[in-house]
């Protein structure tokens, strides 16, 4: 039974989200770091830990994760994924190599097991397509020559996640080599099956769910989405991956409408997701994580910049475009938190959560700032005005 305290706590959290997103909009940066801060302050060991609303917020966070990945999948059609993969294989491989290595290395140096180190590798690798797309749009970079190259790298990263997430989920379940191999096979089959179903039945399914009534359409999408996420989770492939694949499978007018219907819902639950991640981290553990996080952020910022620079140079882009491409890619965000969240839920390595939180806090703020700075780089030589 919801009592007064429950409603007051939930209302307080929601109001806090409102204030924070207002601040983020006002100053033109991503609200993700602010949500994480708020979670730290009101969770375990924070200034005012919540008592009664925690269970509800946990369920909300799970839904937030699913919506976050579903809408990400909706952004891309299967054709765009294939095109981007074909055009950016080399840049994508370089990106993975340069940016996963620092995380993996630091994890192993700190004496972690291999599995949490692989999680950290994923956290340092993946850029935030949400933060980056928004920053580039705000700065008016959609007309720039290097923009398709940057976007293609993001697409490849998101696609890599579709394989990486089931892989680490399997590793976390653990067991002998035989069990891991079987679980990986199951994951591969499920990912393949959902994508194939999307390719064959996607249009039919989209038509089935499509309705001119917002209400009927919304329930239809949520039903299909939660079922897919639940089934994939039951097969140890992770609900996040199921949701992402379902998003890719949706297409046509149904996808357009789904996007516009789900965006407000996603905003609410994704905010809850980030706050909840902060909840589970004891702010007292942050100072210990500060030094490795700073180190990792410095290296991770550098390797992403290098990735963008090299990819843009390969695309025949000039110096300023290369700087912009490099700076744009620096931001980390939602996906790093998604990966860290999986690790924290299983409880593999106590230092993983605080380190990931500090790392994302640093780079989600530094990335957009670097991009704004890159925009002010003057041309090498004076050019005629138009």
């Amino acid at each position, binding site marked *: 039974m919801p009592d007064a305290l429950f409603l007051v706590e939930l209302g307080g959290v929601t109001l806090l989200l409102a204030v924070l997103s207002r601040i983020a909009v006002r100053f033109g940066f991503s609200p993700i770091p602010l949500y994480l801060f708020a979670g730290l302050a009101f969770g375990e060991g924070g200034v005012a830990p919540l008592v009664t609303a925690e269970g509800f917020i946990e369920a909300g966070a799970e839904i937030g994760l699913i919506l976050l990945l579903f809408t990400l999948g909706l952004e891309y059609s299967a054709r765009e*994924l294939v095109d981007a993969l074909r055009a950016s294989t080399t840049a994508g491989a370089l990106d993975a190599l340069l940016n996963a290595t620092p995380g993996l290395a630091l994890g192993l140096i700190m004496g972690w097991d291999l599995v949490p180190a692989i999680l950290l590798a994923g956290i340092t690798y993946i850029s935030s397509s949400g933060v980056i797309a928004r920053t580039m749009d705000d700065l008016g970079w959609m*007309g720039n*020559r290097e923009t398709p190259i940057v976007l293609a790298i993001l697409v490849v990263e998101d696609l890599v996640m579709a394989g990486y997430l089931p892989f680490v989920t399997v590793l976390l379940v653990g067991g002998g080599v035989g069990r891991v191999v079987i679980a990986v096979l199951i994951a591969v089959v499920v990912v393949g099956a959902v994508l194939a179903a999307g390719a064959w039945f996607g249009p039919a399914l989209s038509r089935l769910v499509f309705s001119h009534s917002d209400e009927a359409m919304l329930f239809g999408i949520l039903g299909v989405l939660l079922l897919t996420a639940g089934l994939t989770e039951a097969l140890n492939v992770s609900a996040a991956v199921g949701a992402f694949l379902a998003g890719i499978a949706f297409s046509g007018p149904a996808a357009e409408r789904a996007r516009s219907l789900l965006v407000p819902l996603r905003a609410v639950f994704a905010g809850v997701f980030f706050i909840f991640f902060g909840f589970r981290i004891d702010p007292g553990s942050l100072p210990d994580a500060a030094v490795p996080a700073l180190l990792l952020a410095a290296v991770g910022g550098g390797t992403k910049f290098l990735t963008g620079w090299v990819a843009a140079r390969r695309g025949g*882009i*000039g110096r300023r475009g290369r700087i912009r491409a490099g700076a744009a890619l620096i931001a980390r965000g939602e996906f790093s938190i998604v990966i860290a969240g999986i690790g924290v839920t299983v409880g593999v390595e106590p230092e993983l959560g605080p380190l990931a939180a500090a790392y994302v806090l640093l780079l989600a703020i530094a990335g957009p700032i670097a991009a704004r700075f890159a925009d002010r780089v003057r041309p090498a030589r004076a050019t005629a005005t138009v």
Partner: protein
Amino acid sequence: MAVVNEVELPGIGVRYEFVTEGGARVGVVHHRTGERELVLYERGDPDTSHDLLRLGPEDSRTLAELLGVSQVAKELVELQRQVEGLAVDRLPLPATSPYAGKTVGATAARTRTGVSIVAVLRDDAAFPAPGPEFGIEAGDVLVVVGTPRGIEELVVLLRAG
């Protein structure tokens, strides 16, 4: 028409680019949200672009109208002034018309009345110079040019077939 270069922006939309007769490189970003951006590239430095305008769906229609379609109307007025006895009119296609759901060609307007259908207005969009295969629907407004008498005949024709 100049060669239009199409660039996919995954997750965002499509960008179209072309070089104007004057040599300026212009880009139009089609966001999936329906928003449009007008971009101008600096001459001699393709890596410097100026984000000139951001247009909502309504703004894009207004701009397109100002740039192109209303020119049709203006030219028609001009034409009407030059050719004595020429009439321009807008005829709505009634729902009961036998031609609703048929094509421009099916009306045989020019053969039977000497009147040309020079544009079709539908909702907020305008389709200039529709070919004989162009489908017309109830509620469309046909922009026609001909003699006043021919247009009167066409009105009857559209109503009764």
